[in-house]
């Protein structure tokens, strides 16, 4: 295995008295696509947010290309453009057009008028006609694709995707998952918290099952979905695939 892009060791995180992460060890290789599965409250979202420093971890290390970004006081601003994140609730800026949503960070952070590149991204993901629209003029699927484009416009090496299809109507899920397939084909490193088991089985390099703040079981999708070893994995999959 080459040097991991992201490497977590002993990561713990509590909110008030509730311990959400109880010691996570994980390595993610460049170009790898990892799907985090597990029940709501198992710590998937929090783990993603700890990976880019949006939530500071209590203990443990989060190494990005070998640098511990979880060290208290570490300046995360330059790191954040290397790790994109997309949220379940899109979080587009409602007062800006789709194009301006995407163009803001490249202009302010990279000092770059990335118009050609951004227009290419819109075209590539089938949104060329929607650049001038405001978020509330777009469907949920379109908004989520704009959110992905917004993250991509910063040219991240890694993308964190937090249940990005959970808030969508079922018929809109496909168009967003297609975007992820294309990113995978581009070789993007991705960590994806998801409930889309079929999708995870289809495209993931590795599936991580989380339960009560720990990694309960991990492996290739074939093995996890066809022959889960742990009883709680079996129970979770049974409940979700019933």
């Amino acid at each position, binding site marked *: 295995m080459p040097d991991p892009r992201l490497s977590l060791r002993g990561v713990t995180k509590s909110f008030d008295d509730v311990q959400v992460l109880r010691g996570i060890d994980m390595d993610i290789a460049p170009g790898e696509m990892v799907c985090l599965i597990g029940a709501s409250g198992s710590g998937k979202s929090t783990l993603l947010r700890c990976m*880019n420093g*949006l939530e500071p971890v209590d203990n443990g290390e989060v190494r990005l290309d070998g640098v511990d970004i979880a060290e208290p006081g570490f300046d995360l*601003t330059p790191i*954040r453009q290397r790790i*994109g994140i997309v949220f379940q609730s899109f979080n587009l*800026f409602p*007062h800006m057009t789709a194009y301006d949503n995407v163009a803001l960070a490249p202009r302010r*952070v990279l000092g770059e008028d990335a118009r050609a590149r951004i227009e290419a991204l819109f075209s590539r993901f089938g949104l060329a006609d929607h650049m001038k629209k405001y978020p509330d003029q777009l469907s949920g699927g379109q908004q989520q694709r704009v959110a992905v484009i917004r*993250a991509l416009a*910063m040219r991240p090496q890694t993308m964190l995707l937090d249940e990005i299809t959970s808030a969508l109507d079922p018929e809109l899920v496909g168009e967003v998952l297609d975007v992820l397939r294309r990113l995978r084909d581009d070789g993007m490193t991705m960590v994806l918290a998801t409930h889309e088991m079929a999708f995870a089985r289809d495209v993931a390099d590795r599936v991580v099952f989380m339960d009560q703040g720990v990694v309960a079981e991990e492996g290739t999708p074939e093995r996890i979905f066809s022959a889960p070893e742990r009883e709680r994995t079996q129970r979770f999959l049974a409940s979700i695939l019933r």
Partner: protein
Amino acid sequence: MAAGSHRSSTDQVTRRAAYEAQQKRRANLIAGVSTALVLALIVFLVPLAPGWEAVRASFFDGEVFVRVFPDLLRAFLLDVAIFAWSVPLIFGLGLAIALARGNTNPALFPLRIFGAVYVDLFRGIPVVLLVYLVGFGIPGLGLARPWNSPYIWGTVALVLTYSAYIAEVLRSGIESIHASQRNAAICLGLSERDTMRYVILPQAIRRVVPANMNMLVALQKDVALLSFIGPVEILRQAGIFKSLLANFTPYVVAAVIFLCVTVPATRYADYLLNRDRDARS
């Protein structure tokens, strides 16, 4: 019934539409009649009151109206001018105070305290007192003309009070923006400053437009308080006419002139808000 609705879907009015149109006509008729009735009652009954003649002569004297109108209109220009140069100062300072109160940098903690004290202080002091205190007090320290002008220090008093109010309005607007917006901006690598400037503030300011419009209407009226320290604006001019003519009609004229500005201004703000909403749905 099915046949009816089929037939009507193309060229004929549906039963539902016909019913609604009838209901609407009925509602309009009732509204019209009741409005006319109330107006008639006011127009016919009020003059029957025993004191009406005296009140009419004191408050609604047509001759006085015509005589004082041009002078009051001229005096109103001063109100408009004071208002116009106060508003940018109020919003600038209000924004600065709101941001000072919202900052979390420990090094800037004194600024935060200052913001809190400022808001408590200047919202708590009656505007009139501040107008006197600043308008007479500060020039009394020994400033030379033109820097002791009541126009300057009266404006300062208005700015102090209203920026405290606006600061609170803006802060409530900023706090009403969901944390996920900030998170999204921070995760894109935007600095705190850019996040505030490009993501939070534009949304916050838009959200508090109605509250700010109310503030501006109140400010337009409070501009008249500057007359206490000398400037002859519309209410003072009306007061002068009142003393001169022993008649209150000049105040009625002033009220009419005020309404001519504040009513369209509020309506225009409503229109802007609606247009903003319509454009995005």
